[in-house]
C-alpha cells in the first residue's frame, strides 16, 4: 500500500468519523445567526450551568492530577505487593458505563439506606443532588487519564537525574519537586487537559446523581439535553459548541506548545 494511499485512508476516515460531525455542531449553533447564540450565553440558567461545569471539572482535575502523579511515581519507581493489581485496576473507571457509575453512587450515598449516605445525612451533609455528588461522578470517570499520560513519560525519563540528586544529598520530597516533577510536566499537563475535557463532557453519570436542579445542580451537558428537548435546538447546539470548542482549543494549545518545547529540546 503506497504512502499516498495510506495518507488518504487516514484522512478520509478521520473526516467522516470526527471532523464533519464536529463541524456540524458549530454549524448548527450558528445556523440561525448570532441571535440564539447570544441569547443562550446570556441566559442566567445557562451561565450558571457553564460555571458549575467549570468548577466541578476544575476540582476533579486537581484531585486527579495529585492522585495521578502520585500513583504514577509509585507504579514506575517503586516495588510493592499488589502493584500489578493496582496497575490493572487503575484503568477500571474508563471501562465502566456511566449508568453504572451513577447507579453505584446512588446506592452508596442515597439518604435513606446508602452505606455512606445515611450516616452523612444525619450529619447534615448531602452528597447526592448537590455539588459533592457531581464532583464524585466526574472525578470517578476521568481518574485514569492523568496516570496514563504520566507513566510513559516517567518511564522514558529514567532515574539518572534522580539518583544524581539523591547522591548529592537531596531528600525524597526535594528530589521529587525539583527533578522528577519538572521532567514529567508535559505528561502531567496533557493528562490534566484530557481529564478536564472529559469532565466537562460527562453526561450519563452526572444525570443520575445531580438531580438536574435548574440553576443549582444542572451542568452544561444536562442543560444541552434540556434545551434540545424543549425544542430549543439552536441554544442547545450553542452550549455544545462552547463545550466542544473549549476542549478542542485547550488540547490544541497544549499539543502545539509541547511540540515546540520538544523541538527546542528543553
Amino acid at each position, binding site marked *: 500500500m503506497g504512502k499516498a494511499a495510506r495518507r488518504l485512508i487516514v484522512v478520509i476516515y478521520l473526516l467522516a468519523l470526527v471532523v464533519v460531525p464536529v463541524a456540524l455542531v458549530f454549524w448548527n449553533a450558528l445556523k440561525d445567526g448570532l441571535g440564539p447564540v447570544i441569547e443562550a450565553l446570556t441566559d442566567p440558567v445557562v451561565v450558571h450551568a457553564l460555571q458549575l461545569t467549570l468548577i466541578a471539572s476544575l476540582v476533579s482535575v486537581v484531585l486527579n492530577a495529585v492522585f495521578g502523579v502520585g500513583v504514577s511515581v509509585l507504579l514506575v519507581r517503586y516495588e510493592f505487593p499488589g502493584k500489578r493489581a493496582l496497575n490493572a485496576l487503575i484503568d477500571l473507571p474508563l471501562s465502566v458505563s456511566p449508568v453504572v457509575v451513577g447507579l453505584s453512587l446512588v446506592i452508596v450515598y442515597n439518604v435513606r439506606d446508602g452505606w455512606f449516605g445515611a450516616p452523612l445525612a444525619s450529619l447534615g451533609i448531602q452528597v447526592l443532588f448537590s455539588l459533592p455528588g457531581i464532583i464524585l461522578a466526574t472525578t470517578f470517570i476521568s481518574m485514569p487519564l492523568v496516570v496514563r499520560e504520566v507513566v510513559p513519560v516517567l518511564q522514558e525519563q529514567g532515574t539518572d537525574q534522580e539518583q544524581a540528586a539523591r547522591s548529592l544529598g537531596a531528600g525524597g520530597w526535594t528530589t521529587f519537586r525539583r527533578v522528577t516533577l519538572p521532567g514529567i510536566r508535559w505528561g502531567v499537563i496533557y493528562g490534566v487537559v484530557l481529564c478536564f475535557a472529559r469532565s466537562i463532557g460527562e453526561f450519563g453519570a452526572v444525570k443520575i446523581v445531580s438531580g438536574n*436542579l435548574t440553576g443549582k445542580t444542572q451542568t452544561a451537558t444536562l442543560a444541552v439535553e434540556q434545551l434540545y428537548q424543549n*425544542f430549543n435546538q439552536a441554544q442547545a447546539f450553542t452550549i455544545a459548541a462552547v463545550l466542544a470548542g473549549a476542549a478542542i482549543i485547550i488540547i490544541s494549545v497544549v499539543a502545539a506548545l509541547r511540540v515546540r518545547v520538544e523541538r527546542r529540546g528543553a
Partner: protein
Amino acid sequence: MALKARAGWLAGVAVVVSMGLAACSSSADDATNSGGPGGGAELSIVAYSVAQAPNQAVQAAFAKTSDGEGVTWVESYGASGDQSRAVESGLKADYVHFSLGSDVTRLVDAGLVAEDWDQGANGGTVTRSVVVFAVRPGNPKNIQTWDDLVKDGVEIITPNPGSSGSARWNILAAWGAVTANGGSEDDAKAYTTELFNHIVSLPGSGREATSAFLAGTGDVLLSYENEAIAARQSGAELDYVVPDTTLQIDNPGTVTKDADPAAKAFLDFVLTPEAQAIYAGFGYRPVVDGVTLPEVEGANDPANPFPTPGTLLTIEDFGGWGEAKKKFFDEDTGIITQIQVETGKSS
C-alpha cells in the same frame, strides 16, 4: 530563561482565570427564575420534563396571588421515572408533578407522600391529555385509525414502555382500542403484536421520541396531545390526529409529607379554573369544570382545541396502574414485555 518565562505566563493565566471565576460565582449564585422578591417560601418542584414551560407559567400566575406572593422556586425537570426515583433517593421536593400515577405510588411506598393523595375530587390529577397520532404535515399516508397504523409500509415510533413509565400510556391505548370495540384479549394481543412489528424505534422518553420523529424517523409517532401541540407551538412541522378510541392521560400532582404549606396552596391554585386555563394554553385538557378555554395555538382547531373522542378510556378501565403494571409490563410475565421480546426475536 524560556522555561521561567513560560512558567510565569502560565501562572499569570491561572491567577486571572481564578479571579474571573471568583468574580463570576459571587454574582450568579442561584440563577433560578419565576418568583417574587424575597420574603416568601422557597419551594422545590420536581416534575416531568414536558411540564416545564406550563408549570413556569402557572407559577408566575401563582406569584400574583396572595398565597403565592414572594414564593421562589427550585426546579428539577427530567423523565418522570427518573425524577420519582430521585425523590425516593433523597432529592428534596415540596411539590411533585409526574406523568403517571405509579411514579407517585413509589413515593407513597417510600413514606414520602401521604396515602390519601389521590382521594380528592380530582383523584390526584392536575393535568390531563389524550393519546394521539403525530404524523407528517398533510398526513401523506392518511393515518386516521388504529388499523391504519398496521397497514403495509407504515413505520411507527413510540417511546420505550420498558424503560419509560410514561411511554406506557400509548401502548395501553393501542390495546384498549381493540378491547373497547368488542375485541377479545386475544384480538388485542394479536393487534399489539402487529403494532410492535411496525415499530422502528423506541427512544427513551416522549420528548426523545418527538425529537427522533422530527429528525425523520417513522411515519407516525404515538404521542400525547399536549406534546404534539407544544411541538407545533415551537414551530415543529407535524400534524396530529385524535383517534376515535383513545386513552385519557392523567398526570398526577401532589405535595410531599414534609412540604412547606405554601406548596399546598400551590396545589390548590393549580386546580383552579384560572390555572387550568393556563395549562390549556399549552395543550392540556382541563381537569376541572368552568374553565374558559383560550385560543390554543398549535391545536388542530385553536377555537375548539379539545374535541371529545368517540370512546375515551381511562386507566380505571385497566384496573388502575397497580393492576396494569403487573399484567402488561411485568418484566417477565407482562403481556407487552413478552410481545416486545417475541417481535424482537422474529426479526
